[in-house]
């Protein structure tokens, strides 16, 4: 499974981590490439700060409350579950880091590697599931 994670909004990050944790639990090799807005998600504190997109951002608190009351894990918890399966690899896009002036130290320790498109596509070309989220 190879996902390009281009989005940084809460509603888009949820499917990423839900599918990745499930895939990892099913013994699939999961590769997540965080680029553009997705890079914000792998910065320290990024997952906690993720909001609903655009004007819906004001509803973020309510949505997170509902998520918690239903018992669905937070994004941070889902990331931990992903890593726990030992089958999920997290990559940060090198070019996006340059464009947005993000330094390695700002990334969460769960990021396995900072890579470029060719590295990711090499992986994606052999994957059974490829997605752009």
């Amino acid at each position, binding site marked *: 499974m190879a996902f390009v994670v281009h989005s940084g909004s809460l509603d888009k990050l949820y499917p990423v981590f*839900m599918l990745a*944790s*499930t895939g*990892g*639990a*099913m*013994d*699939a090799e999961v590769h997540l490439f965080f680029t553009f807005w997705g890079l914000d998600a792998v910065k320290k504190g990024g997952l906690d700060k993720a909001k609903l997109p655009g004007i819906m951002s004001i509803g973020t608190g309510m949505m997170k409350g509902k998520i918690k009351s*239903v*018992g*669905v*894990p937070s994004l941070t918890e889902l990331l931990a*579950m992903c890593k*726990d*399966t030992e089958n999920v690899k997290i990559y940060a896009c090198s070019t996006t880091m340059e464009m947005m002036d993000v330094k390695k130290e700002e990334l969460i320790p769960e990021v396995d590697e900072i890579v470029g498109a060719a590295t990711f596509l090499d992986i994606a070309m052999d994957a059974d599931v490829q997605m752009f989220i």
Partner: protein
Amino acid sequence: MVNVEVEVDAKGMYCPMPIVKLKKATKTMETGQVLRLVATDPGAKRDVPAWANKTGAEILESNEQEGEFTFLIKVS
């Protein structure tokens, strides 16, 4: 009578929690050992067999009673 080594209680949890919990429980188990999973998530009805299909585990028994889905799973 099958000897159940591990019990996984996933009642009240929604996808993907039952599957993630299931996988985590199998990590310390040996091939051939049996686990019992109880879940209330209706998605689990299909999720668990799908998980077993991909991981090579065998579902020995599956039961549905009053919204509770019970699976006896032999791990690979």
